[in-house]
């Protein structure tokens, strides 16, 4: 069971981080990053199955693969930004976390521009 392994890694990491935080705070931050990356890599292989299902559904609904790709990119950006922002907050760097989130929001909006334009064009064409 992968979830047991992941839970074990997370618990061990948490205990070690608490201990390290008192003696060496930088090491605690490094440990939290390492644990996060390890857990992410463990589930990375399973994301492919979800993406396949999404792709099949989008083909069935006649949604362009470009739109689906944009959507997946946006979700990826959101996850990465969230992950990094959490690490920054753990390291008591709230300002950095806010900046990362701001950058992610801008990137999401930039990626959404083609979709917004397409929706706008479609809606304008509906008006006689």
């Amino acid at each position: 069971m992968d979830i047991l392994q992941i839970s074990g890694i997370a618990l061990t990491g948490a205990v070690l981080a608490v201990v390290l935080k008192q003696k060496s705070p930088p090491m605690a931050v490094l440990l939290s990053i390492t644990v996060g990356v390890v857990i992410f890599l463990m589930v990375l292989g399973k994301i492919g199955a979800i993406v396949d299902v999404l792709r099949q559904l989008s083909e069935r609904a006649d949604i362009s693969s470009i739109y689906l790709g944009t959507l997946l990119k946006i979700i990826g950006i959101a996850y990465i930004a969230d992950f990094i922002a959490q690490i920054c907050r753990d390291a008591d760097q709230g300002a950095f976390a806010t900046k990362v989130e701001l950058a992610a929001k801008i990137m999401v909006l930039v990626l959404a521009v083609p979709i917004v334009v397409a929706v706008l064009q479609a809606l304008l064409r509906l008006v006689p």
Partner: protein
Amino acid sequence: MDVLRELIQTIIVIVVLAVLVEMLLPGGDMRRYVKMVIGLLIIMAVLQAAAGVLNSRFMQDVPAVTVSDTGTMPLEDIIAAGQELADKDREKAAQQFSEGLSGQVLALVGMNSDVQAVDARVSVDRESSDIREITIVFNAANGTGDGRSSVQSAGSGGHQAVNSTNEDLGVQPVVVDLDGKSIADESNLVKAVTPEQKKAAAELTAVVAQFYNLKPDQVKYEFLE
């Protein structure tokens, strides 16, 4: 009825897709932004499905305004595509230049009737457009010089045409021999290259080399076997 069923099926798939994607969303502040984009996508999908039912063309393809992840145009892709296009054009231009030169060489060589040139291969440097090498291919069976063409002349056994006043018209009587044996015999003649032909070919290559300001070893000739 089928159209309606198709529309409902598509909308069900879109709803399932939307729910699945929403489950994937991260928590926190980013969720609102991603949800907005997903909402737009769902509007697009439903409009597309409706347009399909109405057989209307108000839905367009992906707009031309596309932006990469970084917010800038993918410059490397543009440069690479431009380079590829330039290479293709340069290759085409070199090929046309080579073909044009080949025609020129053939026209130049064709002025000499002792030998018959059938092809001229011109090798051109792609970068500098300089001529690397010219190879002229002659047909050893030229008929005008020594009477060995596929349409065999009467040769020594024939008589020149004369008019009613026995005046020589200078035209050789022509005998077209369709007999296979004769053609087989002629093939032996075709392969034979006379010293005169070789000399004429060498002179022509020298003329071509001089005409194009090339070194003598850059212009070669060969006889078709």
